[in-house]
């Protein structure tokens, strides 16, 4: 006798992934929409709070898988960041600070106008600073883009994520300190988690290239070696309740800057990266609830608009002096739209702190969902308008 209920719950995830993939391919072929927009849409619609195709309580293994997917993308992001560039061209750092600060102030001011409590407004402002590197990396890989908009939006997103995490943790620390009065609890969450995550990420960045050199595997494709290392690292961070995302980012960053050997590896971790990104973007959008989105839609939309404007201005004013045209500067600002994935995971992590940020920050959930779908399209448009994407007509046909 087949247990229909069991079968349905066992198949929920595989079928959702199949449908998301299929819808993504169709939409990409027909309207050239970035695939991850569609994955998010499917995830949201199938989510437990909506059609409830996906189970309500996320199993630990799904969370781990999502973290691995996230880890792979953030490793790649870290690997593409060139810290020496920030020394060679200090205006990149100035741009980053300007756009982050401007975004923070604009969103804080806006939230205050909506009469949110100061602590919520501050947290909202801090999280709004971050641009999702995951979304950017996926769209950049899908579009095979390269050029200054691509390069800068990647660097700026990594920088403003770090800024957002720092500011967010400081504010959370202050909030926890205010409510519990325990400095230990406040500082443990802010500091230890971050620094231990960074340390294990950096150690992996030393160890893996050394291992590759030791085994003389330097001229072979190292995709598999790095993939397995990331899986181990994420599992370790996950199990120690550290930040897998930060560990993977640091791993990528230190592997790039400490490499004594050079390895070729497939961009975006090839097919495995594609598969896991379907899962990741479905997973993230599935955590959102319709109720929340509706509740926060007004302020959510206002945040999107204000944030977009702040980023475009913040990046635009430094465009020329940092070596690109104003037009490209504005396009970098436009491509810095998505918040999404990153923010939601941070929110999830703060649940156990006792303050229910998820409820309080409903506008952010609304903004996240909208940007989860629209963000990739903004990036794609910005890259196309910047002429950093290969032309569709280019494969030469005889005249």
């Amino acid at each position: 006798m087949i247990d229909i209920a069991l079968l349905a719950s066992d198949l929920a995830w595989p079928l959702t992934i199949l449908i998301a993939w299929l819808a993504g391919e169709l939409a990409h072929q027909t309207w050239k929409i970035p695939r991850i927009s569609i994955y998010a849409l499917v995830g949201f619609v199938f989510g437990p709070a909506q059609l409830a195709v996906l189970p309500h309580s996320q199993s630990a293994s799904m969370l781990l898988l999502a973290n691995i997917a996230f880890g792979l993308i953030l490793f790649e992001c870290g690997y593409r960041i060139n810290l020496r560039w920030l020394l060679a061209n200090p205006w990149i750092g100035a741009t980053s600070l300007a756009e982050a600060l401007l975004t923070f102030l604009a969103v804080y001011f806006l939230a205050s106008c909506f009469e949110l409590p100061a602590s919520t407004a501050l947290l909202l402002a801090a999280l709004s600073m971050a641009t999702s590197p995951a979304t950017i990396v996926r769209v950049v890989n899908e579009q095979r883009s390269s050029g200054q908009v691509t390069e800068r939006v990647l660097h700026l997103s990594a920088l403003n994520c770090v800024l957002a995490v720092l500011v967010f943790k400081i504010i959370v620390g202050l909030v926890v300190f205010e409510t519990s009065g325990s400095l230990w609890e406040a500082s443990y969450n802010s500091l230890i988690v971050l620094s231990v995550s960074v340390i294990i990420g950096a150690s992996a960045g030393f160890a893996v290239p050394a291992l590759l050199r030791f085994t003389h595997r330097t001229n072979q494709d190292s995709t598999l070696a790095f993939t397995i290392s990331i899986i181990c690292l994420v599992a370790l961070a996950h199990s120690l309740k550290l930040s897998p995302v930060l560990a993977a980012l640091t791993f990528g960053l230190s592997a790039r800057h400490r490499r004594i050997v050079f390895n070729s590896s497939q961009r975006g971790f090839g097919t495995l990266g594609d598969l896991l990104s379907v899962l990741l973007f479905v997973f993230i959008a599935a955590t959102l609830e319709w109720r929340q989105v509706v509740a926060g839609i007004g302020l959510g939309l206002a945040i999107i608009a204000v944030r977009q404007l702040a980023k475009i201005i913040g990046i635009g004013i430094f465009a020329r002096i940092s070596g690109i045209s104003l037009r490209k500067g504005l396009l970098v600002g436009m491509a810095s739209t998505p918040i999404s994935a990153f923010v939601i995971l941070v929110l999830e992590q703060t649940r156990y702190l006792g303050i229910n940020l998820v409820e309080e920050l409903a506008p952010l959930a609304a903004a996240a969902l909208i940007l989860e779908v629209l963000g990739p399209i903004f990036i794609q448009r910005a890259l196309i308008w910047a002429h950093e994407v290969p032309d569709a007509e280019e494969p030469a046909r005889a005249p």
Partner: protein
Amino acid sequence: MPLEKFRTSQALTLGVELELQLVSLSDLDLAAASPDMLELLRRKSFPGSVTPEVTESMIEVATDIHERYPELLAQLLTMRDTLIGAGDRLNIGICGGGTHPFQLWSERRIFRKPRFREVSMLYGYLSKQFTIFGQHVHVGCVSGDEALFLLHALNRYVPHFIALSASSPFVQGHDTLFNSARLNSVFAFPLSGRAPFVLRWDDFAEQYFAKMEHTGVVKSMKDFYWDIRPKPEYGTIELRVCDTPLSVERAAALACYLQALCSYLLERNEAEPAEDDYLVYNYNRFQACRFGLDGSIVHPKTYEQISLREDILTTIRRIQSRADALGCSPALEDIYRITHAGSDASYLRREYAERGSVEGMVDSALLVFRGDASSQESFSSGV
């Protein structure tokens, strides 16, 4: 449109063009970065000229006209520093080398300019395969007749320039066993190879070029991809067989080796060039591409087999006095060093063996171009 008149130039003046690689510092693959580079470089006056090339991962620079080696070298160094400064601001690596060792031609993007689009439509994948990097040297000539004489008198020396400049041992990720694999990509074009054996400019313009134009195959001299071609609007001949060397110092040395050699040939020290010289031309060219300085060539007059390295050393001795007169003896010393220490192609192969990967090769090419090769500090060369 008939071929324009050959403009008179001062004899033995030099101009150098270099096609350079634009490299991503993340994965060391070629990067489509020329539009951003050009946008930045346009802001200040460039010491020379800088132009786009057919695919967006290439950039071409050209010097002004120079009479002497020190000025030529000085301008090349200033140009290099300007380029590196711009690259640093945009996170783009710049290097020489005739080929990028592991780029995939299918990933290249054609620069947005009507002529390049047309070329791409006509030649299909060949135009993307043409993401190869050469050094072109112009030598000023007083008349069209002198230009054609020099062009043909140089035929037996073409292998010298191939072997001395060779810096393209790897293509699409693999060792080709060639020292200059780049030229194989040039040979694929229908109008490549040698110029027709005509020694009078009027015959060249009125008979050869007019006929070719009448066939509809060509519209201008630009449509010929010859190893050496006359350039009437500049009043020069243009030697096009050199790979872009890894350093601008070597580019200057090659140009001045050509200058001294032309000075020697113009004194009519050798037997007149003849159509039959070209019987061995393709064979000799192949030897130089494949084996570099270790190749052996056949002398077009005596049919004697000679080692390419020996022939270069003999030539250095013969033209030494002209080099002294022209003030380019340091250039000749540099050429002499190449014959002993090996070409850029052998340097790149050594780096490959040492560092263990094609990415490592590109990294060392980046360092050499910066004049920073001695520094063992690896990767992306930063600031």
